[in-house]
């Protein structure tokens, strides 16, 4: 549960952190974080390992109460029905039988829907995740990339206004990573879904991010991607003098991030 909830005045703001401090056992991991996430923004959470990215996600998901400050969700997200989450990994017991339909359908937990609406949502999520036609297939017969898509579909089935992804493309090859990111970019553009995406892939952030949060030294620098995805900012975040090796790849003309909020 979020320890502090206050009405979010701007209806477009889905998540607002105000001087938020988070930590474990009295030891702060993040201090005085300020963040505003609006509908239709594609946020990339970047920073070295242990900088607090997952800690912030845990707080947003309600698994970690704030030590100080406030973390507020839009009232429409209070009951979690419009919040989707894709974990870094999901490793069910391999002896457990499950089909793609059942696995993705578990994303509907907590939603009160009739049978027709459930089916419609499942079909929509599977189609968007590129898994249409595989509903009856065993989850265990899927490739690694398809399983990752199933995780995304399980989050999408909630028709989230805020979608949180914790390094979802780790260990995936380039083509699958591209497919998942293209799907997310389409959601951001067409559904105005706000996305929080944790990754270490700077080149991906450079292509898709509308906004960036740089985690370093217990603090978070946040703002439009154009302002923060610069070598000097990245060097500061990763603690490297000069930052020559931290330049994102040149922009790919195929990528079409939607940056209406910039």
């Amino acid at each position, binding site marked *: 549960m979020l320890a502090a909830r206050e009405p979010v005045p701007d209806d477009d703001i889905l998540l607002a952190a105000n001087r938020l401090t988070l930590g474990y056992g009295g030891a702060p991991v993040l201090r005085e974080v300020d963040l505003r996430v609006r509908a239709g923004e594609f946020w990339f959470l970047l920073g070295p390992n242990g900088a607090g990215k997952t800690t912030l996600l845990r707080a947003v998901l309600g698994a970690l109460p704030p030590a100080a400050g406030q973390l507020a969700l839009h009232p429409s997200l209070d009951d*979690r029905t419009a919040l989707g*989450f894709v*974990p870094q990994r999901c490793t069910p017991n391999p002896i*457990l039988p499950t089909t793609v339909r059942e696995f993705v359908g578990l994303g509907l937990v*907590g939603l009160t829907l009739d049978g027709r609406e459930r089916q419609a949502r499942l079909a929509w999520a599977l189609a968007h995740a590129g898994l249409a036609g595989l509903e009856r297939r*065993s989850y265990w017969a899927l490739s690694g990339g398809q399983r990752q898509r199933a995780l995304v579909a399980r989050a999408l089935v909630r028709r989230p206004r805020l979608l949180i992804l914790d390094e979802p493309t780790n260990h995936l090859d380039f083509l699958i990573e591209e497919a998942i990111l293209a799907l997310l970019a389409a959601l951001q553009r067409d559904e105005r879904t706000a996305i929080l995406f944790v990754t270490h892939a700077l080149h991906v952030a450079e292509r898709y991010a509308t906004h960036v949060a740089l985690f370093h030294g217990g603090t978070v620098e946040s703002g439009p991607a154009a302002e923060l995805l610069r070598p000097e900012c990245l060097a500061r975040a990763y603690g490297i003098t000069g930052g020559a090796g931290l330049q994102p790849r040149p922009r790919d003309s195929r990528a079409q991030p939607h940056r209406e909020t910039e």
Partner: protein
Amino acid sequence: MIRDFIASWPLFHDAYVAGWLIAVLLAVVGVLVVARNQIFLGAAVAQTSTLGIALGMWLGSALGVEALAGDHAHGALSLIGVGFAVLAALLTARGGSGAQEAATGWLFLAAASGATLVLAASPHGLEEIKHLVSSSIIGATANDVWLFAALALISIGGVVLTRDRLLLFAIDPSMAVAVGMRASVWNAAVAAWLGLVVGLATRATGLLYTFGCLVLPPLAAASLCRESAALFWVAPLLAVASGLAGFVVANHLDLPPAQMAVALQALVVGAAWGVGRRAR
């Protein structure tokens, strides 16, 4: 064979019905144990229950309250075993998989050795422990029938009301938290229920039958079903079918029914693995 079984009904009907109800109850709860990869935890909880029962017997003898201790596991003091089982399940249900595995192993070994040592000096102590570990359903009473019928109904009702939540909690706790489920509360509730039913079943029938019914029917069902939701009705069905066949065959061959039922469950698991492998 069937006629022999029917002839034995007036004498053993409480034991038979209690055995089937325990099988249904444990198979339903066992789906979660198997789904969460906690099979060894099930064994450790049942073993801890035997330590509690042994302590109850020892305490009864030491205090001179044989009426409470009884001459077998049904003495009132053996309810300590239920308490121990609940405590064991709660203590080992949390933590990472490595830490949990270590705690479960420690618990199993401490309880197994402790139960024997506690009753080693008692005139019939080791015999009691052997009896408890090897299992028998014959001692089950009419009260056990009512108790386990109620527990089975509560378990089935709980599954009907919260099936998808239980599955999500078992398959992906992080997602469960994300959709608003309180993981610590679910963890404690599932562990407490597991400890309670395992403790009571161990007290009534012993370790082997309890552990067998807890894990074998869900394992067989996992090989036969295509979706996890079906495990909640296929596993109890297999448990009852094995129990029915086991008790009939055991009666005919004059063998112990609990062991026969568990042996049949093990056979069903082997066959199900073969069928499942062929289907894949």
